[in-house]
């Protein structure tokens, strides 16, 4: 193997109480790859995404990001939980975009983008502001820097949220159904921003129901159901010519 994997999941298990949501996920992402995670709701795709930046703790298996274990440190054959500061520091390298945007409503669009680079990384304000304005321009919202989230449409909010994540200069971007809460006519703008990002070489894992986007942008499509990976491969195989009956059934419903 030449470059280290950006994400390497080995037999990842996750339960909520007695309910096992992830039943052994094996999953590899090389740097620069764009992965689309498809699957019916309840299949565990969002949970898996949240495990990658340790918003959820895994119960069994191993999960590495950029060669480092997520949430733990291995000493001998024992795992030690990482202290909060370490977990937080590792999260700065992973950007996340949520289904419901989760912008901070008491801050302007610019304030939202500047918050983490200044407060978490302690970067000088002027540098961050310049970068934030660049990012706003890139997502097509340079003129809305002073607007509060509630003054923006859903699509605009989601584009600010993407800019907010990018301001931390992450090496990996996670998207949790970024267009599912949007009105249909606003989906296109958000997907366009994500398409540009993919072209720029960002490593991305996208949980989505946008089959068209997956077909066009993804290097690999992963179909999950019932807490396991059912099928994965290039979109030309998984989407156009699914082998598994469950994949066929799912695609016939969403296409």
């Amino acid at each position: 193997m030449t470059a280290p994997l950006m994400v390497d999941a080995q037999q990842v298990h996750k339960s909520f109480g007695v309910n096992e949501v992830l039943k052994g996920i094996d999953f590899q992402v090389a740097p620069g790859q764009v992965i689309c995670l498809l699957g019916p709701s309840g299949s565990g795709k969002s949970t898996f995404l949240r495990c990658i930046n340790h918003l959820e703790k895994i119960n069994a298996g191993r999960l590495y990001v950029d060669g480092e274990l997520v949430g733990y440190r291995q000493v001998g054959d024992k795992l030690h939980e990482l202290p909060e500061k370490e977990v937080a520091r590792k999260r700065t390298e992973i950007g996340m975009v949520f289904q419901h945007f989760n912008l901070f409503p008491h801050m302007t669009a610019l304030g939202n983008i500047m918050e983490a680079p200044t407060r978490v990384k302690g970067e000088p304000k002027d540098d961050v502001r310049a970068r934030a304005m660049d990012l706003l321009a890139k997502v097509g919202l340079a003129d809305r820097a002073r607007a509060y989230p509630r003054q923006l449409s859903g699509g605009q909010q989601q584009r600010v949220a993407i800019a907010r994540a990018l301001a931390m200069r992450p090496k990996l971007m996670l998207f949790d159904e970024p267009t599912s809460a949007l009105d249909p006519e606003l989906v296109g703008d958000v997907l366009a921003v994500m398409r540009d990002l993919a072209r720029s070489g960002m490593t991305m894992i996208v949980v989505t129901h946008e089959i068209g986007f997956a077909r066009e942008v993804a290097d690999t499509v992963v179909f999950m159901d019932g807490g396991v990976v059912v099928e994965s491969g290039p979109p030309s195989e998984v989407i156009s010519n699914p082998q598994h009956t469950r994949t066929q059934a799912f695609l016939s419903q969403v296409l």
Partner: protein
Amino acid sequence: MTSEVETTRGRPETIRAVPVRHPWRWVAVVVIAVLVAMFAHMLVANPNIHWSVVRKNLFNSLILQGVRMTLELTVISMAVGIVLGVVAAVMRLSRNPIVSGVAWVYVWFFRGTPLLVQIFFWFAFSTFVRNIAFGIPFGPHFDGADSNKVVTLFISGILALALNEGAYMSEIVRAGIVSVDEGQTEAAHALGMTRLQTMWRVVLPQAMRVIIPPTGNEVNSMLKNTSLVSVAGLIDLLAAAQHIYYKNYRIVELLIVASIWYLAMTSAWQIVQYYIERYYGRGSARATPLTPMQRARMLAARGGHYQ
């Protein structure tokens, strides 16, 4: 199809309907006006209320001292109480069971006993704790003082009011914190913020919108509850009024004086609260309502006419 028909007809005339009449409103106005007039007459023309006494005592130096004492007690107790409340609320929501248990016991005790009992307790503090000193627990101590000198009358008043207030405030703050959407915490964590940063920069500022209105109530109650400390000899506004009427027997007049001051202080607070709410409401409504000053300026710019 229908729209085509409508456009050829042009815009229909604006409706000018006869409004619904409300005769009972006028009856209510008359009844209330008569009652108000009777009450005002009873106050003003009453030979037993000497308004000159009210006027003379409104700015009596003892009254002014009392106002000052009431204000100091309110501001300091409220400030300490809010800090205690935030700390207790955050502790209560901690994942550490000991920490959250301590906060629970604090709220349970100080909300569960009467404020008056707590006031007496703190005033009697030096009768059962004679010395206060720094040192090794159960071991030798380095520096100490007579607790009568440390816990003065004023300090014990503050302690009683602030500790009691902190217990109520903690529940108000906790309600505010849990009202903030979970997704906000997640987004902050995903950006690499620690739990403390998340609380301070993301959760609490949003919780403020829920916290402020009941806190306004608390400030109002506190302004009036400070009068309880007079039982231990602190001279607040009400105690000052009492001192005067013990001498001149003008009870009602001095109670009116005290009420005027209490109303003045609570009204002033209401104005302050309006601006605080406005500040923390930013980003919440599509447009914030105008302040009275802005409204006045706009009215002046329009030459004194609305619209």
